């Protein structure tokens, strides 16, 4: 009986460890997307339609990535960036095709959330620059969603 208990204990130990480490092991871009959508939530009530499709990936601390997106004059856009790493600091900024900062001054950054607001002056391609400013992790998942009205 004692031996049986030992076997149970030994086999359950790795399982317990797996359960405990699960958030670390299985953290993914999907988790980052959940946070980005969380940041977008208050804006839905203001009439913004948040797209289901999104961009995502992982970045090291201090790294940036550019996302190119077609925007239409007449619409108003918000881009929301999120990561599941709660001690990370992220930022998002939007530039037009000439490289000129194209965002409104009411964008915000708060820890692992950031958002940029754009009212395009012209229809065309814009560059959204996402950045992991600081993070305790070697690689930090990020996800960027956008909404328009």
């Amino acid at each position, binding site marked *: 009986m004692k031996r049986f208990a030992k076997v149970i204990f030994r086999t359950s130990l790795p399982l317990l460890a797996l359960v405990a480490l699960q958030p670390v092991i299985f953290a993914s871009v999907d988790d980052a997307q959940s946070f980005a959508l969380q940041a977008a*939530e*208050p804006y839905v009530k203001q009439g913004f339609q948040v797209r289901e*499709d999104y961009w995502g990936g992982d970045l090291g601390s201090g790294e940036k990535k*550019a996302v190119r997106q077609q925007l*239409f004059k007449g619409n108003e856009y918000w881009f929301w960036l999120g990561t599941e790493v709660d001690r990370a600091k992220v*930022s998002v900024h939007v530039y037009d095709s000439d490289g000129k900062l194209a965002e409104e001054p009411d964008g*915000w950054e*708060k820890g692992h959330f950031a958002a940029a607001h754009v009212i395009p002056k012209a229809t065309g391609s814009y560059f959204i620059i996402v950045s992991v400013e600081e993070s305790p992790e070697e690689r930090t998942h990020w996800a960027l969603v956008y909404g328009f009205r």
Partner: protein
Amino acid sequence: MRPGQRGGSINVSQIVLSSDLCTAAVPVKVRSINPEYEPEINSRKCQMIPFTRHLKLGIGLLCGLAMCAGAAQAPQHIDIKQLSTTVEDVVVPLPNEIFGALNKLGAVNWKQHVRSDKGPNFTERPRIALLLGTVIADGFIAVQAEDSATVKEIGQRVLALAKGIGVGNSITPHAKAIVEAADKRNWENVRQELDRTQNSVQQAMNEVHDEKLSQLVSLGGWLRGTEVLTSVVKEHFSSDGAELLHQPDLLSYFLTRLKAMPEFNVPIIRQIQDALGEVKPLIDVGNRRIPPESVKKVNEITTRLGHGIVTRD
């Protein structure tokens, strides 16, 4: 307090010189905080005596400023050519993203663009994918026209087409939600469900490594959206309306993807590829305006392609 709820708020969006807050010599822009957190900062359970109130307000403000001051000001200009780490994935705009912008330029008679004919049943998967994208776009047009009956028909048609390419299971709940929302004339929900439908179809395709079919769904939707956009602008021309056609990078994206589909030996795919080559110089005009003749030409091309997508060879 839930995000978005209104409370007494302090506007912390302002420019301050950073010298008092940190050692950086450049101005630091204190960015406004997420409205979600504003009510939390300003809410309190009981009335405070003035001194405590000032003290707490002061501490709160300092903490807020210290927290926000960490956000470095974004450069006013960057060199786009030096961006070597660009994400290649494109999120193709939804038809209603363009229709919304078009609506703001003046009233549009959306009813005249509603299309509800069922069309033929194809067996070739690339053709079904293109048609599916087109039908989803038709759903957005029917929503603009607030045509409940057509939206419901389209919901069923989308489901049938999704089954045709083996992704029906992921669409069933969305088709149901579209019909329910159309019954209630809840157009915002229908729009959201149409977006979800397209996303679920594409995700299901990507999971089985059918990314190319997924791209054809987007292309079908984009073509139908562009057909209607040019039709509206052609009838009541305005420079702002024509400017909505300025989508050269999106066109390049589709052209690149089509070139990578040699295995799809379907005439319509090659016709679209050739036609997009014709469209590109008409809309890739840099800072110049798109003239009425170009709008007319793009309309002719997209109408021809649209007819090809819904018609058996």
